[in-house]
């Protein structure tokens, strides 16, 4: 408990210090609870998520950093490895490949990389995974772009 708090506090200070160092990631700690974080990440360019801003919710266990943080998308996203309803993310480093040397910042980077490189063979979103696995890249991209427009971009007008 104390360890995780100290570690999170250090990460918080690091985030404050390097604000703007990574323009694609904005990590914000909950005002009253250091175990709750949210992050805004920009959809990577040359993907259907380009131009969108996606919100992530971090729930950090007390055993952090020995246990990985629980991360899910708050913004709807059409991606084979993200559950369409719950926003749950299927990513190895959030499960068995977690290392205590990772930080919340590096988790965000990993998620951005996952957005750019989906793994259709372990899908949480079967529709999306099936489109990719059947080779319908265009269908996948247009669906993903549509949801990016709908959910991850500021409404116009």
């Amino acid at each position, binding site marked *: 408990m104390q360890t995780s708090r*100290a570690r999170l506090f250090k990460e918080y200070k690091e985030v404050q210090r390097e604000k703007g160092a990574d323009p694609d990631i904005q990590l914000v700690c909950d005002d009253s609870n250091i175990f709750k974080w949210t992050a805004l990440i920009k959809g990577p360019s040359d993907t259907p998520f380009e131009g969108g801003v996606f919100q992530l919710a971090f729930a950090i266990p007390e055993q952090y950093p020995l246990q990985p943080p629980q991360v899910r998308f708050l913004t709807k996203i059409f991606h084979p490895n993200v559950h369409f309803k719950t926003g749950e993310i299927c990513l190895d480093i959030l499960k068995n490949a977690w290392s205590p040397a990772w930080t919340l910042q590096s988790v965000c980077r990993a998620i951005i990389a996952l957005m750019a490189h989906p793994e259709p063979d372990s899908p949480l979103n079967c529709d999306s995974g099936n489109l990719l696995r059947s080779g319908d890249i265009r269908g996948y991209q247009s669906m993903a772009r549509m949801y990016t427009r709908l959910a991850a971009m500021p409404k116009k007008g």
Partner: protein
Amino acid sequence: MVSDSITNASIPCPNVKDLGKKKRANRSAKLKQCKLDVRREQWLSQVKKKGCGEEWTGDGLHRDASNGSSENVESRRERGRVEANGPGSIHHDSDLELSPSNSPISLNSILGSNDSGTNYSGSGSSSSSSADCCSGNITEEDDEGGDDGCLDDWEAMADALAANDERPKPPSCPPPPQDLTASNGSGMIVGGENLRSGTRATPAAANTRAWRPDDAFRPQSLPNLTKHHSFPNPSDRRFVNGGISWAGCNRIFNVPTSCPICCEDLDLTDSSFLPCLCGFRLCLFCHKRILEEDGRCPGCRKPYEHNPVEGEASVQGGGLTYRLTRSSSLMARP
């Protein structure tokens, strides 16, 4: 003799200034500071040894206010402040005179001729012996070291110190010789001060800005220093016993990082602990916790071996190399 040395010494002024500027611009200044620190520590232990011995006792009456040799060493840094206190500290001044003899040493090496010990020894009878002893120590050490890499830093520090008390004085006014010939106790001090201002006031003015903000001790701009160990009130540190505060400095330079897992500071045992061949370091506490759970190295995710490699734990002197290996291991981190 003394006036001779003054004219000698005033020659390298611009030279020294240039060097100082270069150094400040140089990012490797930190590395040099590391070396400097190690050397300082050696010097300190040497001085301590002698200080407790017979050499310092000779002028014990001068140092009624000082607590001992360690304080005296510490006072090297405080010199400026003490001298600024005014006439009350004249005696102090006279022994402080000898402690910064590291600065004449660097001059020594630049000039190759000027012997600081003799400069001061001509003036005061009681302090001359200790001045000789002190400067002798340093010269020896410099010779032993053989590496001139940090001489400029010595100089820069001495300049910053000298700047504290000598700023109001005009940079280039060699003292009239009659001052020195009429030397009693106080005349000696004036002569010494003038000598110093004559030699180094110009670089001092430039150096003050670089060293001053964090109390004339080390450039704050160096990375990693402010990150983990900022000095909230440096004035406290001054009054600490010399050994302790030196140890603090060394800690800052040699073991600046904390455990990447729990963010606690690594102590000596931790920092000599190398549990995995990949070089990922962590504290013993976190290592134990990881062993209780999945037992894989956070750096490479390979299972920990049962016989951890003991790190190259060398308390003395090896601090610099040690620090380098650590930083490289941190860079290898994912």
